[in-house]
């Protein structure tokens, strides 16, 4: 099998897609180096979260980040890994608080990574003594036991804002409802369609579609977050055009 055969195979086309996607991310990162935060549309949820972090620090309240039970592998794992970027930024900003943020997850690997992210963040900013492994918790290992395990975190620990960023199912409504009952802000995003549908009703600030994946760009987690958003926008339009052309060709009977 020569290189051309490999490239025109479905796997080869997938590889080409990834390489072009990565290339465009890097190009946009270099081009937008001096203009961080520009070309981002306003998402109220992230502005409200930024303010909520400040208010929590002032009021001596806690922030709670929930990473779901999706683990770290497969499609559903990526949203939890993205949630860790949010954890890192929130931990930095809330590091001067009397009550450092608490992170809950429903899977062992995510639990370890949340502890590691908190530990690394506090070490980086010279506040290593702020870290306690109890801040990164595994709350339950099935979807409903996880939701039940998260509720005491919200009710008993003076939580003023809850961020749900990861893979959830419909049980996420129980967590969002608990946050609502304690008058806290709930910002919720997931890769799961089912969870997103529930979040629209139950969360104050739901993140729909790929808005969760934009979180890194909005919380200033690094230049590649903003550039990957631009790459996603372009590739989305490319895919839309391909779908429409495909539908039109099918309609006229050419394929």
């Amino acid at each position, binding site marked *: 099998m020569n290189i051309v055969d490999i490239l025109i195979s479905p*796997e080869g086309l*997938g*590889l080409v897609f990834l390489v072009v996607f990565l290339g465009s991310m890097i190009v946009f990162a270099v081009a937008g180096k001096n203009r961080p*935060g*520009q*070309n*981002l*549309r*306003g998402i109220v949820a992230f*502005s409200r979260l*930024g*303010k909520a972090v400040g208010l929590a620090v002032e009021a001596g309240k806690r922030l709670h980040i929930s990473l779901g039970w999706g683990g770290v*592998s497969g*499609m559903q794992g*990526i*949203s939890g*890994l*993205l949630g*860790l*970027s949010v954890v890192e930024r929130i931990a930095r*900003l809330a590091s001067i608080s009397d009550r450092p943020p608490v992170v809950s997850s429903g*899977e*062992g*690997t995510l*639990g*370890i*990574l949340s502890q*590691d*992210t908190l530990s690394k963040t506090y070490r980086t900013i010279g506040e290593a003594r702020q870290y306690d*492994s*109890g801040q*990164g*918790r*595994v709350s339950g290992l099935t979807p409903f036991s996880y939701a039940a395990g998260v509720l*005491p975190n919200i009710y008993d620990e003076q939580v003023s804002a809850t961020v749900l960023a990861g893979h959830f199912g*419909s049980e996420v*409504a*129980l967590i969002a*409802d608990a946050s609502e009952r304690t008058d806290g802000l709930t910002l919720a995003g997931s890769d799961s369609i089912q969870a997103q549908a*529930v979040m*629209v*009703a139950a969360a*104050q600030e739901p993140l729909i*579609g*790929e808005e*969760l*994946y*934009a979180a*890194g760009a909005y919380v*200033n*987690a*690094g*230049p*590649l977050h903003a550039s*990957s*958003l631009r790459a*996603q*926008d372009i590739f*989305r339009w490319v*895919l839309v055009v391909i779908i429409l052309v495909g539908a039109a060709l099918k309609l006229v009977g050419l394929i």
Partner: protein
Amino acid sequence: MGSGCDHPGWGSIETGGADMKIPVAAAIAIAFGLVVLAGYFLPLPELVSLRTILVQWSMIIASTALFVGVANLLRVHWFKLRKGGTASAYSFLLIASLLVTLVVVGLYGPTGSWSLWIFNSIQFPIESSLMAILAVVLIYSAARLMRRRMDLFSLLFGMAVLLVLLGSAPIFGIEIPFLYGPDGLRSLIVQIPAVAGARGILLGVALGTIATGLRILIGADRPYGG
């Protein structure tokens, strides 16, 4: 994505996590990630077998992480129990249940009669009752949505929920003619606009997943502590 906006409270981008120095842990993670990815795309037998071995290792590590997770759960509730207060009773119950289950499953195996009794008589009913509570919570949340964000989309959401619910099953044996059945309005909503919307959302999620995966692969995001 539109233009110019301010994101209050998030500080400057320079404090972000995109440190371009690559420590050893990150270099190893990136190398392994590239090998696994290449194994999916390039049909080289050595690469495919290496990918299989690495994926198997990751499964073993994930299983070990499960034990670490249980230990973490135990630790958190042990501290809550020692702290006292009303919530400590729940922590005691959790620790006692965990230890009893561990002993029972250890003695009789995961398919033993007592192990299955714990699952069927305790865990399953409790999770089912949580699911029942969920139905009430969702109805309450939908009503609260109308109060919190009364706009066109909320109204559309509420109407769609109502139509799909009414069309899902006969009410007291009465079928609503234009809603119920394979040609009813419910089927129309579920099969056309809902599927189209879900596919659109999944398209965005897939692109977001690719972007996040690539950032991790090149070491711009390092959730593995490097």
